């Protein structure tokens, strides 16, 4: 929770707003996402994972920063590039890996895979295989919160590609007319698959779309943990206060291709290298060291710890049972409720 005693404007918002323990936990989550995805990539490359996956390596600050002020009662909706959101909202790595491996112990019991991981208990309503598919759903979750008076806020993650879908526009409009507690977080990683925002989107900044729906819109450096937190926390507070939705645009970059079949023909190695220089995790670690919250040894220990957590998660997934073939159509409908 924001710490109101720290007010020095020269100190980054995150340092002022959160306790050292919260910040170290945030850094740990960022490392977890990075190692988790590297582990997933390695498993995929070895043919241990079916299908494809969309990695968010390079976007960790956006995922973790946007979830900082959320509780387990608050909801998020996620995207096909959603591993980071999942970890940020507190998901269990073992269950995530088990899902990747198609195991019965996975979050979706092997029915969903990478693109549908959800963790309803932690408020994660799920990744989505349809671009912008989760946006109206987030608005619906916000409608529930408002009608039922739960006080919960929904953070709706989506990518730059989704901002040109009709669902985006319809959903933002409805969230605004009904003043719903939802924060739209656009992770603008510059490309919808191979098509750059310059080529796909009429406005310079996706945050400018907010004006059309009469809500605040803000564009921030999505690789700056503190900037993300500052913008999203304000929007969450506004939503919780009953003042309606906001749109935050986190400008970031995915280091990897769109999916595992991407041949990277639409961007240069130089561009990728340039963004790797702006590694959100390195920047977060540096910020925490600068403010005396952590040091090299502690970071190394986090890294080692995270490495082990990922290995343990993979081991859990590998050792887990596969779903039974005869259960292939289970869960299409709810079990019959006794009358």
């Amino acid at each position, binding site marked *: 929770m924001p710490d109101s005693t720290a007010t020095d404007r020269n100190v980054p918002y995150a340092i002022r707003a959160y306790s050292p323990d919260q910040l170290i936990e945030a850094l740990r989550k960022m490392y977890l996402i990075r190692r988790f995805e590297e582990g997933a990539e390695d498993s*995929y*490359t*070895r*043919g*241990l994972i079916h*299908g*494809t996956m969309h990695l968010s390596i390079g976007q960790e600050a956006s995922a973790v920063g946007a979830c900082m002020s959320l509780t387990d009662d608050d909801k998020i909706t996620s995207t096909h590039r959603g591993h980071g959101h999942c970890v940020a909202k507190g998901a269990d790595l073992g269950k995530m890996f088990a899902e990747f491996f198609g195991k019965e112990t996975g979050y979706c019991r092997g029915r969903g895979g990478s693109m549908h991981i959800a963790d309803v208990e932690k408020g994660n309503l799920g990744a989505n295989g349809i671009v912008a598919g989760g946006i109206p759903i987030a608005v619906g979750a916000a409608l529930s919160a408002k009608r039922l008076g739960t006080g919960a806020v929904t953070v709706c993650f989506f990518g730059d590609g989704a901002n040109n879908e009709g669902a985006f526009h319809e959903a933002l409009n409805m969230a605004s007319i009904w003043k719903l507690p939802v924060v739209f977080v656009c992770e603008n990683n510059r490309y919808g698959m191979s098509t750059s925002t310059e080529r796909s989107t009429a406005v310079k900044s996706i945050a400018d779309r907010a004006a059309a729906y009469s809500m605040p819109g803000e564009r921030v450096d999505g690789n700056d943990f503190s900037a993300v937190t500052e913008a999203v926390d304000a929007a969450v507070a506004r939503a919780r206060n009953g003042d309606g939705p906001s749109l935050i645009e986190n400008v970031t970059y995915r280091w990897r291709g769109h999916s*595992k*079949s991407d*041949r990277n023909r639409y961007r240069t190695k130089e561009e990728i290298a340039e963004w790797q220089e702006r590694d959100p995790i390195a920047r977060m670690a540096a910020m925490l060291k600068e403010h005396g919250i952590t040091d090299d040894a502690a970071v190394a220990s986090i890294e080692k710890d995270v490495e082990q957590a990922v290995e343990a998660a993979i081991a859990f997934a590998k050792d887990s049972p596969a779903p039974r073939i005869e259960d292939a159509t289970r869960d299409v409908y709810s079990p019959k409720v006794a009358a």
Partner: protein
Amino acid sequence: MPTEIIMPKVDMDMETGKIAAWHVEEGARVAEGEPIFDIETDKAAMEVEAPANGTLHHLVPEGAEVPIGAPVGWLYAEGEEVGEPPVRKTQGPERAKEPSKSEPKTETPTPAPVTSTAEVAEEKPRATPKARKLARDNGIDLATLNGSGPRGRIQAADVAVLDDRQHAAPVPPAFNNEAGPLSVIRSRGGTGTPIVLIHGFANEAAAWSPIESHLSRRPLIRIELPCHGKSPKRRLSGFPELVSDVRRAFDDLGLEAAHLVGHSLGGAVALAIADTRGNRVDGLTLIAPAGLGPDINGAVIDGIGRATRAEGLGPWLRQLVADDTIITDRYVRAAMMSRKDPDLRAAQMAMADVLFPDGTQAFDLRPAIGRLAMPARIVWGKRDAIIDWRHALGAPGHIALHLFDGLGHLPHLESPDAIGQLIAATL
């Protein structure tokens, strides 16, 4: 431990990848991130970068097909000793397949010979599933039934009629079912293509005797219908079974060619045989044949069938001819003698019940007559009181019609010379 370079999965449905080209040679030093080889998949070619710094060894050859996750080479750090290829720490190092040893493709299977479906369809009776089930459950051969549905489709009702009769009929006439072939009576002498004669209902082989002298230069063969003459008495399911019995007798004769002569019901049978044995019947004479129209004089059939004494039989027999003076008492008594066996009468009544229910001919050979290819003629008396001679008028143009004003249902009895010569002339 050297760093392994694996065949990466770069496509969703990829199982193996092919080394299209190595950019660097065995033993060369490479830096992490340097492109070292190209892979080819079904969909794309892709460059793969070195995962670490080092010297390349144990490369699989260009062109090799490598399963994903299997090593394609190893990178040795400076000073690391290069020996045998290391054993992998992870599972499943399937060996790369040499391109030259690639397995031959499975041959395209040649299509199996297919029996002509048209042929099969011809032979199968058209029937609804329900009719089939009824027939199956009651042990009835569908081929023996006539379908009342569109295109002759056998419907449940067509099976049910039979079913009712067999299982719930008002006490069917009792007789013992007999086995064995039909009675065949051959004359001695004669040469050339034989004449096969098939008598009518309630008659027998002797019926042909009035005209036989005209035909005797050819071998004469008389087949007696089931339940008639010396043929076994059998409970028939319908006309098709009757035809099937007679056809079997005809087939057993082993003739290469024959002239068929049939009277009344025997005419219908002869027509049905000619229709299915066209290549062995080179001429056909139908005398007052059944099967060419729906109506038939049921009362006469019943009357003849029921009669147990000459007194009861005579009046019915006289209806068979135009000039009833030829049906003398002696003739009637002789006819009754040949019908004295009650089993025979019962069998014939059961047969009539199946073939001519309610004064109706339960079979229709009009389509068959249209298909005849051999020379054929119809002989009919215009005073026939059993089957209307006008049925002949439906025959197609290539069938000769010989219509006699003063004759009834038995032209060969009433006017044996005219009929005998007519047949002889066409042989």
